[in-house]
């Protein structure tokens, strides 16, 4: 789960990492009022995506243009996300901008502290353009970050970031982060460090022990998540319901290979029952672009007969005319075939067969 910048900065302050003074506003008026109190201020759109700066979602303001700027940014949408909140902060004008972040090196199975003199820019871009400017320090997940490691990083950066690095690591570990990033970390006039931006992603699997509130939302993604499934909306017209992320992606690749366009990614996960499949069908068919649906289930923990019951019930209940191609194999397969006989769904033999058929159906006028 990604945190908003202002939430991440609250966390920073809790862990003793300095941030600019600031407040959140959701109306232009309150934004202007805060800006007035702060003097030189910056208004920053609060959306969970990068590229806010380039999109014009971050702007320094004066007393005279704060209201107008706040209005403009609150009206924006950045990468498809509507701006609903603004962070109004004092403008720190740092003398230097560094990069400091902690993420997970999957290959090394360890957290990695990343630092660079080239702060304030996209770190992946910096890594491509000036690989030598990126300092990587792997952290032992049992022993923690060592003094000598931070000393070496500070020496190579030319700035002592020891205190901030230790605090950031503590936050990263205690709050189950997969990313905790300060970019830029500003070195301000008095030599002190200040986190000018904050990006935190919390491990979804650890939310049970973290006090973050999941955002409530009626989006299909959120509904799927609540049902323990994964759903990602895409641009095509073929709905997909598959168990297992790998098989789901394989199915999408096959659909594309046959000239079709998937309308979504959906992984119903292992052990899904009849009701789960019905829910999945509701979510997938709530997308008005969908012209046909592929259900591709390889039974294991998931029982094919349960899936069949779910499909049958959904079709009975919803009276939906959309063509559904079903490919079921594995545990409970025979019973599933029997159950689906009279439901009008189209049976497929294999993933490839299913993909071929559903593409053909979606192309029908």
């Amino acid at each position, binding site marked *: 789960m990604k945190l908003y910048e202002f939430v991440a900065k609250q966390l920073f302050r809790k862990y003793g990492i300095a941030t600019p003074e600031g407040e959140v506003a959701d109306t232009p008026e309150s934004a202007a009022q805060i800006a007035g109190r702060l003097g030189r201020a910056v208004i920053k759109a609060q959306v969970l995506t990068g590229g806010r700066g380039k999109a014009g979602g971050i702007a320094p303001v004066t007393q005279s243009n704060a209201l107008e700027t706040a209005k403009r940014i609150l009206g924006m949408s950045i990468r498809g996300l509507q701006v609903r909140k603004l962070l109004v902060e004092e403008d720190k004008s740092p003398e230097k901008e560094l990069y400091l972040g902690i993420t*997970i090196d*999957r*290959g090394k*199975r*360890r*957290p990695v502290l990343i630092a660079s003199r080239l702060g304030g820019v996209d770190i*992946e871009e910096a890594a491509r353009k000036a690989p030598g400017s990126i300092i990587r320090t792997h952290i*032992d*997940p*049992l022993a923690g970050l060592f003094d000598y490691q931070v000393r070496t990083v500070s020496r190579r950066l030319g700035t002592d970031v020891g205190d901030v690095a230790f605090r950031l690591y503590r936050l990263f*570990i205690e709050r*189950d982060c*997969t990313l905790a990033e300060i970019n830029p970390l500003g070195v301000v006039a008095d030599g002190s460090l200040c986190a000018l931006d904050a990006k935190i992603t919390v*491990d*979804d*699997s*650890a939310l*049970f*022990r973290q006090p973050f509130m999941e955002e409530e939302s009626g989006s299909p993604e959120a509904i799927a998540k609540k049902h323990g499934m*994964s759903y*990602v909306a*895409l641009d095509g017209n073929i709905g997909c319901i*598959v*168990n*297992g*992320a*790998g*098989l*789901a*992606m*394989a199915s*999408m*690749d*096959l*659909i*594309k*290979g046959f000239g079709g366009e*998937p309308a979504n*990614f959906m*992984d119903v*996960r*292992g*052990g899904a029952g009849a009701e789960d499949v019905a829910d999945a069908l509701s979510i997938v068919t709530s997308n008005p672009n969908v012209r046909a649906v592929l259900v591709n*289930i*390889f*039974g*294991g*923990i*998931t029982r094919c007969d349960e899936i069949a019951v779910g499909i049958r019930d959904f079709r009975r209940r919803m009276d939906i005319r959309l063509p559904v191609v079903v490919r079921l*194999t*594995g*545990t409970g397969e025979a019973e599933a075939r029997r159950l689906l006989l009279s439901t009008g769904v189209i049976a497929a033999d*294999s*993933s*490839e067969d299913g993909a071929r058929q559903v593409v053909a159906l979606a192309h029908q006028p």
Partner: protein
Amino acid sequence: MAQGRWWLLLISRDTRVIVQGMTGKAGSFQARQMLEFGTNIVAGVSPGRGGEEVHGVPVFDSVEEGVAETGADASVIFVPARSAADALFEADDAGIGLVVCITEGVPVKDTMRVCRYFEGRARLIGPNCPGITVPGECKIGIMPNGIHLPGRVGVVSRSGTLTYELVELLTRNGIGQSTSIGIGGDPVPGMSFLDALSLFEKDEKTDAVLLVGEIGGTSEEDAAGFIHKMSKPVIAYVVGITAPPEKTMGHAGAIISGRSGTAQDKIYALEKGGAMIASGPGDVVEKVKRTLAKN
């Protein structure tokens, strides 16, 4: 606590398996499946349920007791995500040499701690994985029973159902498997593709390897460099070509960030490393067949 309890590639009918979380719904169901497969399950573990039996297998309160009573050397974990790491530490402390963690949703911090703890000790497959199967010998995990056929192709994959699908396809086409390993789709896995390839390279019963990758991370890329050092051919199939960047495709932790980790990058790296690239399930069968014919 002993150093160097590295597992042989091949589990066998003699491997003595403990099921942690045996009295739970999934644990009990899958234990029965494994027993039916022929796996030598010697003990179950469920704290507070010691003395009971499940499917005729004795249940113990702790792994330590289970090992002491039965001489178990492998373990498979079905406990809930929030106590999975603890079960893994317990298995290692009890001297288990191979631990397969089926549990999904284990926090990545826990997995990193466990992987570090296991260094030089127990071998971990998973978490969030289907486990390991040697057809005709032993299954530790949740792969469906009917899909396997003894043979000489090693299969290693990050996904679950896609693996079943491919293994079944191989079987239907008369191509047997030496060992099938589902390493799991979590961001930080115990066994990596590279680990699995090294094992298959050493395994006398394996002639060729099928590697099934997916978007996210760089586990495929990390393994690619090893392929040209192998004496055995590798056929690779990577899914997620149609996945848009910067989206999370399911719980598998398949996150694309920037340019690295895309299916295209993986395919490029694997091909450069010397793997044959299959374009789909059908092509997998074709390429494996052709490879075996050549050898």
